[in-house]
């Protein structure tokens, strides 16, 4: 199928025909993955809105973008599953919240914005970090508490940050990142950046008071803040209908417009985020509700099956899986063969395994690291350990 596509797009000439079989043998991805002829795809479901217009259901994309989506989401999926095994092997300790099933939100959002726009998320941040440009080594090293981690091993799973691409984390306390996100939007308006901030939170955090406080202030001051509720329908073990009187999270902004999006469809997410960015720059805050689903439990200590049935999980996996949707799109538009996609997945698997091996080799932080970064530029003050006599160090 790919061959026929090549044949139709390139001008036919004897030499080209002769070269075609050679091309197919070496690597067929090159011409396809750089192909930017627009393809129009309809989103799976229409958008529903509150106090604003809905964006169109037809999304412009192209082969390059779709293949990038596939690659990125497959990478994230593989990374999260690998993290699962590492946790069970006790190489990752503490809390580990996995994002598999929700990859479309991270990937779709990234496709619609630039690195000047800020993203701030809660503790389910591994994939958002990767979408913002984080490397696999940084992820696994941080999860295992090694020096090469993005936070030098001192943050852990819930504290991934990448300042140079405006990814502000990585926060453990539910809902606390939303006022921070509105603060980022304030700074953007103050410095006239013409950029927006996406503050991600979950359906559990949607009931936090500080969220409504921050939304109120953002609406009053016209801040370019986009509040994104990643609604995976369960706040740890509590289903949304048991936690929220009104589970229509996109409507809860009242005076702030809202949009409900199928969060398992990367193209719908991309469309909604583009729309939201435009809106926020002109009219102030907007709420996006991403209807998504997580396959794993809330965290690694939650089996994820006590409050929902296995049938539900497999049902969603069969019908709405984001990676599968993109795979079907790619195959139906003849952008790559099954085999090529499988090769990509094999490559990704190897990449992940290599990163894990590299991270395992990486050393743990030195004891002196305990006292770095407590204060900026340090004060020359002394810091004590629990017994106040040993581990005396002068804060650098």
């Amino acid at each position, binding site marked *: 199928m790919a061959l026929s596509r090549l044949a139709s797009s390139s001008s036919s000439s004897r030499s080209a025909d002769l070269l075609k079989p050679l091309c197919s043998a070496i690597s067929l991805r090159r011409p396809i993955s750089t192909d930017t002829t627009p393809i129009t795809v309809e989103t799976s479901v229409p958008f529903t809105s509150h106090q604003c217009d809905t964006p169109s259901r037809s999304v412009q994309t192209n082969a390059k973008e779709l293949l990038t989506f596939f690659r990125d989401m497959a990478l994230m999926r593989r990374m999260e599953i690998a993290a699962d095994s590492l946790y069970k092997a006790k190489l990752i300790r503490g809390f580990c919240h996995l994002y598999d099933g929700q990859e479309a939100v991270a990937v779709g959002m990234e496709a619609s914005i630039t690195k000047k726009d800020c993203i701030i998320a809660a503790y389910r941040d591994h994939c958002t970090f990767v979408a913002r440009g984080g490397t696999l080594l940084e992820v696994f090293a941080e999860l295992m508490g090694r020096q090469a981690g993005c936070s030098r091993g001192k943050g852990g799973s819930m504290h991934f940050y990448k300042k140079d691409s405006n990814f502000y984390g990585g926060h453990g306390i539910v809902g606390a990142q939303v*006022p*921070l996100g509105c603060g980022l939007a304030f700074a953007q308006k103050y410095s006239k950046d013409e950029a927006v901030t996406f503050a991600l939170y979950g359906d559990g955090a949607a009931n936090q008071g500080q969220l409504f406080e921050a939304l109120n202030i953002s609406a009053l001051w016209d801040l370019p803040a986009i509040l994104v509720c990643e609604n995976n329908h369960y706040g740890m073990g509590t289903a949304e209908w048991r936690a929220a009187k009104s589970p229509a999270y996109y409507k809860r902004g009242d005076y702030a417009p809202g949009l409900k999006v199928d969060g398992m469809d990367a193209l719908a997410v991309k469309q909604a985020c583009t729309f939201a960015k435009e809106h926020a720059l002109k009219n102030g805050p907007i709420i996006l509700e991403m209807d998504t689903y997580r396959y794993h439990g809330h965290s690694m200590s939650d089996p994820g099956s006590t409050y929902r049935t296995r049938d539900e999980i497999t049902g969603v996996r069969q019908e709405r899986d984001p990676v599968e949707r993109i795979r079907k799109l790619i195959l139906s538009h003849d952008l790559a063969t099954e085999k090529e996609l499988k090769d990509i997945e094999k490559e990704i698997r190897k990449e992940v395994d290599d990163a894990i091996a590299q991270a395992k080799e990486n050393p743990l932080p030195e004891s002196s690291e305990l006292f770095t970064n407590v204060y900026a530029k340090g004060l020359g003050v002394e810091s004590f350990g629990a017994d106040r006599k040993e581990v005396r160090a002068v804060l650098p």
Partner: protein
Amino acid sequence: MAAIFQGVGAAAALSSSPSNSFDSKKFVFSPCRSFSVRKGASFAVVRSDGRVNLNPKGRRAQQLISNAVATKSDSAAASSSSKPGHELLLFEALQEGLEEEMERDPRVCVMGEDVGHYGGSYKVTKGLAKKFGDLRVLDTPIAENSFTGMGIGAAMTGLRPVVEGMNMGFLLLAFNQISNNCGMLHYTSGGQFTIPIVIRGPGGVGRQLGAEHSQRLESYFQSIPGIQMVACSTPYNAKGLMKAAIRSENPVIFFEHVLLYNLKERIPDEDYICNLEEAEMVRPGEHVTILTYSRMRYHVMQAAKTLVNKGYDPEVIDIRSLKPFDLYTIGNSVKKTHRVLIVEECMRTGGIGASLIAAITENFNDYLDASIMCLSSQDVPTPYAGTLEEVTVVQPAQIVTAVEQLCQ
């Protein structure tokens, strides 16, 4: 090494004859002081060890002279007593400090309830909204948790917000943001973000304000890693500390006191900064070290008058820096007098005094002739009735009795 600015010390080190300029700088403001609220004698602030800042700390000051931006004009002015400075009240000093910093750095902004159009509930931000506009002096709704969070988020990008809690007690609503995000983000991000925020507000026991409006939050915040805490007590150090706090890369919690806003003092005209981590020697002495901060400084000075009449020579140190403690100044004093009395407004349990006792005992136990005495407020919610409120807080008579007991 921190960027330490010494308003006084640096000036001393800059000029050729340190002692002369040091003293003359003191003369600049000491005789003209008048306190409308608290009676306090004016004392020259000279280092008790005789030498003027030419100790290791002075070496630190000299190391940084090349960076001492604030004291550029001090060398000329300090050595001459021609410019006596100007007289103002403490809240005006804070306002001056804020205004100067906002002019100097466009990234400084102020957020709080009623700070803008209303001018601030204690007039600290009066006139700033008109001068700098609504985007730099921001009136927030009554939502401490979120606007403190927003200030921290803005600080993560490089802005330098000054967040005002109308009363420090209200900041309890923002405790999560202050503890987890403000204090810890620099660490958990591996040093990627600094949070150059200043969180300020009046606290302490006022005049029959009731239990909820008379809180001393320094004891609750002191364990948070990553933050600095300072308490101002005079117009001079209020302005100096405010400016230093704004310029600091670390998050600073700046404690003011409700009853000290109308203190009048003459402060220098030129730009100066007080060291955030340094304690202030209020009255050098020989017999006993009295450590205090904020409003209790004035109770101590009042007691000191009585003590001097009775023949005692107390050394009074205003610790100013509540986190970290200036153990250098305190230690030198303890080594000299061998007796310590701490007078604070915090409650006895878990207060600043409790931590200070622990710090001094661990480091200077060999120099102590007697156990450290600590006078703190009673462990009760501050009552409304005036007489009860008076008993809750440490009074000068109790300080005198304590010193007599300590010096037996």
